[in-house]
């Protein structure tokens, strides 16, 4: 295996930081290190930086700079939106509706809300992982305080109809939150067009550093803070601002805005070549997620009769890194709730692989994976008692 054939295809789990972003971040660690609250020139530098950062991030999603609250990441933004939102508006109702394929952070936050007395309902999805709007209409009523539907699913790539979902929420005066983490830097995000009240934004998903994220909160929409302190971020999120991280995230947003159209086009082509190639060379393999309406970087393929962690280990051995929907690769020992929600059986979910492409991937790597996969799948299938005779 030569170095240029190593293929990291787990960009949904973690991305490298763009060197341009890193340069910007370094400046704010070493030169413009003042506290934005300080009333002197070093403080003003930092305060100006925050203003720039808010402009850049808001521009990416067609928001107003005042609508951006920086956090420590997507998980905190999800906590702030869901817990802070329903606490602030609890007089409006007792029900929270989320999709059955939300990220684990949203699912676990709503479990906490259940303990606070809210009723949480899951909106089912179809076989491609798209929320059923007709079911959402039935679930949302005048007792619903919040609806949260992700913009796109990072595991199966499926893009959700959030504009339509927001409309349903608003028709019952419920708030609408969307976790846009997996979609960051890949598809156009427009909070005005989609008419969302809260949107979770990630930094690392667009090649910014980890440890920073943001929540969009529509002007006029309120929230109960979770973090109490010096009243930073309009009092919504206290704690001295992570100016360097915030500037880095905003630089990543600026780059994403400039380069997204071209890069998403390139990734879509790679993705389609990967999906087509893999399905062609291996029998009893299937695409998970939506065939067309999916994130440019995502391919999720299911292999019958074998298990995902064993696939990951075998691929890692030939220099390819990715994720799986298998229970064995997860902390919970449960297969992916997303795949199960799409109607897959447990044994089917166990054999699923998640490829998430990124800037560092190219056609040669895609061809390399397509070349390596048949041998790996065949070896594991030959070992499996489930494999039918003709596939051994």
């Amino acid at each position, binding site marked *: 295996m030569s170095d240029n054939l190593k293929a990291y295809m787990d960009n949904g789990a973690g991305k490298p930081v763009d060197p341009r972003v890193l340069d910007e971040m370094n400046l704010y660690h070493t030169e413009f290190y003042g506290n934005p609250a300080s009333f002197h020139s070093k403080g003003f530098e930092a305060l100006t930086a925050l203003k720039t950062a808010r402009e850049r991030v808001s521009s990416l999603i067609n928001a107003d700079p005042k609508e951006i609250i920086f956090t420590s990441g997507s998980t905190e933004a999800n906590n702030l939106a869901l817990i802070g939102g329903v606490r602030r508006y609890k007089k409006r109702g007792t029900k929270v509706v989320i999709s059955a394929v939300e990220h684990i952070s949203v699912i676990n936050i709503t479990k906490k809300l259940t303990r606070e007395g809210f009723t949480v309902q899951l909106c089912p999805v179809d076989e491609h992982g798209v929320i059923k709007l007709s079911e959402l209409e039935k679930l949302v009523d005048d007792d619903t305080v919040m609806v949260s539907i992700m913009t796109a699913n990072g595991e199966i790539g499926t893009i959700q109809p959030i504009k339509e979902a927001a409309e349903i929420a608003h028709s019952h005066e419920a708030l609408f939150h969307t976790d846009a983490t997996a979609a960051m830097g890949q598809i156009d995000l427009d909070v005005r067009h989609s008419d969302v009240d809260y949107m979770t934004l990630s930094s690392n998903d667009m090649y910014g550093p980890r440890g920073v994220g943001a929540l969009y909160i529509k002007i006029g929409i309120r929230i109960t803070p979770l973090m109490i302190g010096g009243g930073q971020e309009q009092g919504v999120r206290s704690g001295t601002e992570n100016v360097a991280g915030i500037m880095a995230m905003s630089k990543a947003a600026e780059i994403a805005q400039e380069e997204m159209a071209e890069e998403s086009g390139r990734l879509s082509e790679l993705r389609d070549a990967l999906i087509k190639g893999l399905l062609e060379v291996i029998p009893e393999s299937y695409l998970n997620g939506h065939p067309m309406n999916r994130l440019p970087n995502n391919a999720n393929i299911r292999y019958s009769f074998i298990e995902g962690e*064993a696939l990951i280990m075998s691929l890692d051995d030939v220099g390819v890194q990715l994720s799986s929907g*298998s229970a*064995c690769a997860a902390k919970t020992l449960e297969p992916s709730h997303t795949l199960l929600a799409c109607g897959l*059986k*447990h044994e089917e979910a166990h054999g699923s692989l998640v490829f998430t492409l990124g800037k560092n991937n190219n056609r040669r790597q895609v061809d390399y994976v397509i070349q390596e996969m048949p041998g790996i799948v065949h070896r594991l299938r030959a070992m499996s008692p489930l494999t039918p005779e003709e596939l051994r």
Partner: protein
Amino acid sequence: MYSEKVLKHFKEPKNVGEMKDADGMGTVGNPVCGDMMSMYIKVKDDTIENISFKTFGCGAAIATSSMTTELAKGKTLDEAMDITRQDVANALDGLPPVKMHCSNLAADALHEAIKNYKENKEK
């Protein structure tokens, strides 16, 4: 994270395959849980003369299957019945805690195969 021994037994498992003329066979686990193992044994003079396995499952499932066949080969049936999950894990320089229960079933499959052999013999 797996030990070097687990990785080695995953990459180059010993005694893989179905045994057409097995004297005893045992299967444990199920595909719903993500792990399923079959052990086949050939017995001569109350000793496991030959053994093989087929496994559906994660890296630990495959490595423990391979290690179990290595531990059991050449042992008397009584000795093989005494091989425990812990013995298998120890022989692999340990397993991650979450894998101890779900994927470490190979010793059970071995015991089932021995029971199956004894049942076949009584018939």
